[in-house]
């Protein structure tokens, strides 16, 4: 069994492998050197795992590239995997999210992009179609860009139904129950302190994750606030009590233990650094009723930050937790966040990490 950790940075992609149960890691890279890799996924549904990367050439524009041999060779579609239809008058700015669908939909891959748009591929990520039901939503003209740009950054397809949950900064949480045709905002209870009144939509939700309790239970890290819903987003309640700060970018949920999730608090709004300069992961095992701090192996005197996709969990047992920082460090925990070890240092800014197990 090989554990594979894909690390997307501002200047390329690295692949870390562990052959000893995630105790030690070997770093391979850079791949795609000098290209920003803001989104990465490893599609393990295929005979040969496919690494998909949402890249930005800098001068030469964004696209999706893929490798079916773990980085030995890379490919892209001649005409571009993601191209806005002519009638939209829009152009792709950045690929923020690449998300394989379930095993029952083996060639379906979703992409979330800037400007706010959702895309669906039925050929494993070689080409994507704009999800018109989302693009044509009457709310779209009022979805404002957050500081990093306006994008669909979270896509959560339900493997057991046609439900798709997305999150946007800004815009908030939207849900489709019919595979993408119709969308409704589901943000009741999520605060938006940058607006005068709690809105129906327009929240700056930074990341959403599905709890192991089932598809109706989600957790969200917001631009101020950590929230939980047990009714598929119709009502959210705060679970931030006990955290040193309720601001942060990522959130991850255990794939196997209901009520277990992790966040990385930052002091905000303007500073956006770890509280007291100590980088820490905080974990709840009781659905947000309480939080505990993970310190072992994480640095003090650390004035960096963790971006929304530079944090993930794997599906191993016990669950692995992975943290990438803006100062180019990557930490891995093989014990559900009790302790961390360094996987990489001195990389460019880490923008995304994804971990999978390969047979």
């Amino acid at each position, binding site marked *: 069994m090989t554990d594979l950790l894909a690390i997307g940075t501002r200047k390329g992609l690295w692949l870390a492998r562990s052959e000893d149960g995630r105790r030690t890691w070997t770093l391979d890279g850079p791949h795609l050197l000098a290209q920003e890799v803001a989104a990465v996924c490893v599609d393990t549904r295929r005979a040969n795992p496919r690494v998909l990367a949402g890249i930005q050439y*800098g*001068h*030469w524009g964004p*696209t999706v590239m893929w490798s079916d041999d773990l980085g030995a060779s890379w490919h892209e579609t001649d005409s571009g995997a993601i191209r806005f239809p*002519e009638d939209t*008058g*829009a*152009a*792709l700015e950045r690929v923020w999210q690449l998300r394989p669908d379930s095993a029952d939909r083996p060639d379906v891959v979703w992409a979330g992009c800037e400007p706010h748009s959702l895309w669906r591929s039925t050929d494993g990520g070689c080409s994507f179609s704009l999800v018109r039901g989302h693009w044509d939503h009457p709310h779209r003209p009022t979805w404002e860009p957050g500081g990093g740009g306006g994008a669909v950054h979270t896509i959560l397809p339900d493997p057991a139904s046609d439900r798709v949950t997305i999150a946007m900064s800004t815009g908030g949480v939207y849900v489709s129950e019919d595979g993408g045709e119709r969308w409704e905002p589901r943000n009741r209870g999520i605060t938006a302190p940058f607006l005068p009144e709690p809105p129906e939509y327009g929240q700056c939700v930074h990341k959403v994750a599905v709890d192991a309790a089932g598809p109706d239970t989600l957790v969200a890290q917001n631009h101020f606030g950590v929230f939980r819903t047990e009714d598929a987003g119709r009502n959210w309640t705060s679970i931030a009590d006990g955290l040193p700060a309720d601001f942060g970018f990522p959130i991850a949920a255990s794939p196997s233990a209901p009520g277990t999730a992790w966040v990385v608090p930052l002091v905000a709004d303007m500073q956006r650094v770890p509280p007291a300069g100590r980088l820490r992961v905080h974990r709840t095992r009781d659905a947000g009723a309480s939080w505990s701090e993970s310190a072992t192996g994480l640095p003090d005197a650390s004035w960096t930050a963790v971006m929304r996709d530079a944090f993930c969990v794997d599906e191993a047992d016990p669950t692995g937790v992975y943290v990438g920082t803006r100062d180019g460090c990557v930490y891995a925990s093989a014990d559900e966040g009790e302790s961390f070890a360094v996987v990489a240092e001195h990389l460019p800014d880490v923008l995304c990490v994804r971990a999978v197990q390969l047979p």
Partner: protein
Amino acid sequence: MTVQVVLPGVLADLAGGCKHLDVDPSGGTLADVLDELAIRHPMLGRRLRDETGRVRRFVNVYVDGDDVRYLAGLSTTVRDGAQVQVLPSVAGG
């Protein structure tokens, strides 16, 4: 009509390894030249322009030595025998 397109080395691989290409556009504007280039080399075309047809922000194009931003942009007239040079701008970090 034939126009010579000069590419930076970093883009030559997308044009079969050639830094100098002779292009026969269907019309007499820079847009016609880039359209023909994109038909022959789609990936190269995408590097230079987005899907709306706009030249990317950090791509500079010169027609006979003049920056087309200060001419007529994509509508700049390109004469028979002209040289169209593509250069990346100073950007990045």
